[in-house]
């Protein structure tokens, strides 16, 4: 419950700091500068009022790390109950639509909603992260299959770079720039997107462990900002706040680049709690 409140209403500190420091780079009085100011003002207000940062409270995805042999069905059920409660408290919008009928699912709980991913580990406590990613930025996520002739992109990091820059250009301001990119190089189409999205949980200060990826992360961030698309696509220096790359094994015949675009209202929070008593020991993110 508290995890849902914090995630929906309290913008993570690293995002807020990044917006703040980019504000100094934009020309005073420009659309870019006023947009960044409005984002900061909005984050402060949402925190103060316990109101959702954005009215699109996003697809709810929980990432669990649990001790081996944990009964995960109980945790899934508890997550659903917390979502119902958070919806009735106004921290989440009635944001789930039955796809075929168009009807609203008022409690925000249905098949696969909220989504839960479990990893069992050698550990004694539970760690769970929640991500709320809205539809505007989700529409800007993209997948490329290399080689790509139109981009002149081959099966190497130069090809990956061409895909990522192309995706940023195509997104313009539609994903509520400045955003963050989570990128998976390799894997298959479905798992590629899952891994790409999971990279969005990494703090902005985090770099890929692999040096060639860490170098490319830095370069892509700089070059994406040189496109000068700016906050909300209104021109300016601040187009992206972070690029997070990961590589996964692939099939010989397939080379996918999967890109998850996250808006500036990057809602992600984690918590550690006791496995038996569910007592919170630490807040993360």
């Amino acid at each position: 419950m508290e995890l849902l409140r914090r995630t929906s209403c309290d913008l993570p500190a690293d995002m807020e700091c990044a917006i703040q420091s980019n504000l100094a780079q934009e020309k005073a009085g420009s659309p870019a500068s006023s947009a960044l100011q409005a984002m900061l003002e909005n984050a402060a207000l949402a925190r103060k009022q316990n109101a959702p940062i954005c009215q699109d409270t996003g697809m709810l995805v929980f990432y669990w790390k649990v001790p081996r042999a944990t009964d995960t069905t109980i945790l899934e059920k508890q997550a659903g109950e917390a979502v119902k409660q958070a919806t009735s408290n106004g921290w989440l919008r009635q944001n789930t639509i039955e796809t075929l009928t168009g009807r609203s699912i008022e409690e925000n709980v249905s098949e696969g909603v909220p989504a839960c991913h479990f990893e069992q580990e050698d550990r004694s406590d539970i760690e769970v992260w929640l991500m709320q990613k809205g539809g505007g930025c989700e529409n800007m996520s993209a997948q490329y299959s290399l080689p790509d002739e139109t981009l002149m992109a081959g099966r190497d990091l130069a090809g990956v770079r061409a895909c990522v820059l192309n995706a940023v250009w195509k997104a313009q301001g539609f994903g509520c720039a400045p955003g963050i990119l989570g990128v998976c190089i390799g894997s298959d189409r479905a798992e590629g997107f899952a891994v790409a999205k999971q990279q969005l949980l990494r703090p902005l200060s985090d770099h890929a462990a692999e040096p060639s990826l860490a170098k490319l992360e830095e370069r892509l961030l700089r070059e994406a900002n040189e496109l000068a698309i700016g906050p909300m696509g209104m021109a300016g220096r601040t187009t992206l706040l972070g690029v997070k790359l990961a590589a996964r094994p692939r099939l010989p015949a397939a080379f996918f680049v999967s890109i998850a675009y996250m808006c500036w209202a990057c809602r992600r929070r984690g918590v550690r709690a006791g496995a038996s008593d569910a007592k919170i020991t630490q807040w993360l993110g």
Partner: protein
Amino acid sequence: MFGPALRTRKSLNGWVNMTSLTYPFTESAIRTLSVGDAVSLNGLIYTGRDRLHKFLFDGGESPVDLHDGAIYHCGPVMAKTGRGWRVVAAGPTTSLREEPYMARIIERCGVRVIIGKGGMGRATAEACRRLGCIYVQVVGGAAVLLGQRVTAVHGAHFLDTFGAAEAMWALDVEHIEGVVAMDAQGRSLYDEVATASRMQLTRLLALRG
């Protein structure tokens, strides 16, 4: 009383120069504005998104007079209070989804101001030029801030049929700040940024290694 737009020098939210517009928005006031101008919107506006646009496009009668009015592309989070409704969060939704409908709605209903995010396409830009309408970009995701600028909720139309998010809410607003991103001369900030960033992209991709 509802004369041309008021030009102010007051700095609001970092703006150096902001034009204040109050409903009803007259064609002459709208035509003085250009891409990049900061505006503050005041008075009565209506929310509308996918279902309302399709309804109006298909020939449905608007329950209110939209002439010289504003449509805000927004699906708000609303809370019921003892006396009526209160806005919890009301940021913009992606406007481009309404592109197939917008030009006809501007023409049929006499809309003068569209508020949203992300901008719209050539058909809307052409309708803005021909009929005297502007598109105002507000900050996506700034839902609480924008919700705070609503001073009164005058009920909703189509609440039962469309649901709370898709309903046509009648809102009184004060100082909704935004940027004219498409003007009544047919210019679009989005087209200009897309063209400039395309050139940058081409330059970057030409650098190999």
